[in-house]
């Protein structure tokens, strides 16, 4: 906006340099306005400064040549010397009077304000101390009530008698902490699970660390954490060491392009070629003569990791745009003709078009049936079967596989496992 303004200003300056006119326009000096406002303020707000007001009036009438509130001197001001000095002296006297009275009044005001501030601070401090202990007491009372309610609700909701028995026993004695470690892609799910579980069992602490899928499985096999989160299936050697694969949710990745693109489906090979830079024009993929703009995520993203891992193109992708959030990818793809990008399945809306891969549309049914290739399981691995774990971990898995857990899975945008 300022480029046209500046160009306009250059134009005007060139135009005006032809005319050598100087105009003097009468302007209301800003200092005048502020001094008038100051006078009004003092008059209205502070009674004690009435003396100041009259003193200032005296000052301004005593020296007609000087502007009120301004100290500027001009070379062009022509005033005889002695008049100047007399006016100055009168100004100083008037100012001294006003300052002495002002400081007296202000001292009194300052003392009052200091005392009020100290008193206020003391009251706030006492209140904070008092309130803290009160909310602490109220908090524990509340959590007891919640545990009671949770126990009651659980007893009501269970269908399995054995499950009811287990939960009953657990409802009384659930205390301790569980550690989850592993995939960063599961961060949203793990945090939501931890929060919901801790709300249900307030004496249990669930801690989640995000160190990567492989690191998480290693930790659970070494016994350093209770559950290892992994956003891929377990390898045979990991299963051989005793890790049990408990799939808790499925994550789908949709490949999207802008709505005006004619292409509606791609094969796996075409997708790989687009992302590794071998195919650079939509013509080669069956569309119009439009260059391909390859959009992806930044290096640490779980979506990027999953996408590249499933297609087998880690470290060989050539991105034109590496954006740092799903929303940014959606916005870019929606507004750029010829763009292609990948996002989580749950955020796809009407502003972009989701492509079918190898003939399978990107939908929940196809993912559950296994025909859509860009899907990955979210695994919460344990060392040994669930029934061999501690009661806390068993309660966690019960929660995840229950109706509440399914709600949680759907609320973070994943697909439940039947």
């Amino acid at each position, binding site marked *: 906006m300022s480029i046209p303004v500046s160009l306009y200003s250059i134009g005007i300056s060139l135009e005006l340099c032809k005319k050598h006119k100087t105009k003097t326009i009468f302007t209301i000096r800003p200092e005048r306005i502020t001094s008038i406002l100051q006078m009004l303020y003092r008059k209205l707000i502070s009674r004690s400064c009435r003396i100041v007001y009259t003193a200032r009036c005296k000052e301004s009438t005593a020296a007609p040549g000087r502007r009120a509130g301004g100290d500027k001197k001009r070379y062009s001001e022509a005033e005889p010397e002695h008049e100047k000095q007399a006016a100055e002296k009168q100004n100083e006297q008037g100012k001294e009077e006003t300052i002495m009275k002002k400081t007296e009044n202000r001292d009194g005001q300052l003392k009052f304000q200091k005392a009020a501030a100290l008193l206020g601070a003391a009251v706030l401090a006492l209140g904070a101390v008092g309130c803290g202990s009160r909310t602490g007491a109220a908090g524990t009372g509340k959590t007891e009530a919640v545990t009671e309610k949770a126990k009651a609700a659980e007893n009501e909701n269970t269908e399995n008698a054995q499950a009811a028995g287990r939960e009953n026993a657990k409802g009384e004695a659930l205390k301790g902490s569980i550690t989850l470690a592993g995939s960063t892609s599961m961060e949203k799910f793990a945090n939501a699970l931890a929060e919901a579980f801790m709300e249900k069992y307030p004496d249990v602490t669930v801690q989640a660390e995000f160190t990567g899928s492989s690191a998480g499985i290693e930790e659970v096999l070494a016994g350093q954490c209770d559950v290892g989160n992994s956003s891929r299936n377990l390898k045979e050697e990991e299963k051989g060491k005793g890790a049990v694969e408990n799939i808790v949710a499925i994550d789908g990745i949709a490949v999207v392009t802008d709505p005006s693109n004619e292409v509606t489906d791609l094969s796996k090979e075409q997708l790989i070629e687009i992302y590794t830079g071998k195919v650079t024009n939509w013509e080669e993929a069956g569309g119009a003569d439009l260059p391909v703009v390859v959009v992806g995520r930044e290096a640490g993203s779980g979506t990027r990791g999953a996408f590249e891992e499933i297609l087998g193109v880690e470290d060989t992708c050539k991105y*034109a*745009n590496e954006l*740092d959030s799903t929303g940014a990818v959606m916005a870019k793809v929606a*507004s750029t003709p010829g763009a292609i990008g990948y996002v989580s399945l749950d955020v796809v809306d009407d502003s972009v078009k989701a492509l079918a891969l190898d003939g399978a549309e990107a939908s929940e049914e196809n993912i559950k049936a296994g025909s859509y290739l860009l899907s990955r399981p979210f695994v919460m691995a344990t060392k040994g079967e669930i029934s061999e774990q501690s009661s806390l971990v068993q309660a966690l898995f019960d929660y995840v596989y229950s109706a509440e857990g399914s709600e949680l899975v759907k609320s973070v945008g994943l697909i439940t496992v039947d």
Partner: protein
Amino acid sequence: MCEKKHSIMGSRIDGSMTEHTAAWIFTGCGLLAVIAVFSITLYMVLNGTPALFKVGILEFLFGTVWKPTADPASFGILYVILTSVFGTFLAILLGVPIGVMTAIFLAEIASPKAAAVVRPAVELLAGIPSVIYGLLGILIFNPLMYRAEQYLFAGSKTHQFTGGANLISAVLVLAVMILPTVISISEASLRAVPKELKSASLALGASRMQTIFKVLVPAAGSGIMTSVVLGCGRAIGEAMAISLVSGSSVNFPLPFHSVRFLTTAIVAEMSYSQGLHREVLFTIGLVLFIFIMFINTVLTGMFRKGVGGNGRA
């Protein structure tokens, strides 16, 4: 204005509690600024140097491959550094002449009515948050640059099309962002030039434009240099606005390439990084910090020397 003497350190002559407390409060605030700068420097150095030695200084500063999640990872930020330097330089090249000429317009040539339109517009520009510039870049500059790209590289087999998110979009956004700083400081320094210089030059027969460009601008030189330094600081430190328009792939900084700046490199990958990757991001912050210190000291030293040499105000 008043005759009563107030010493900032307080004295026994007027030794009331208020005086002493006030003096301590002001000293404390001043110390806070010093402590803040010192602790930021210390924090950056402490967090930035471990990765520097783990990766190796030469490989880090002069390597060209940035693949932090590969196996094995490679952290080479040469292209990133070049992009920051080059991008800032271009933004200044574009923004400073326009800014100085607008300042000349506001200070010398504008009638009060025209100034009353332009000055509030400049001040409004200064107040707009940087994210809005980024959004405007996405709305306006990216489509324009994409069309330009399609026109210039039509049929090219080697160019990677970026959809308009490239170095030029980022440079345009940066140039618009540094304009308000440059304009307001340059205008203030032009107004501060003593009127005698202008009168003398006009009296000697110079035309208005000659006076402005040969007398006033050199006289206001130190102020204009200050505005350039501040604009430079803002351009090199900008992260949010250009992360939306610059494309964020690590490439050599040519105008139509998707590029990554030092600032956007940190912003883009901080949330998901872990381990060595995260430490390397802190090292990039340290490099950026050193750059800014360097630019500030060099440019300040330069114009101070210039002032001493020419003997101008």
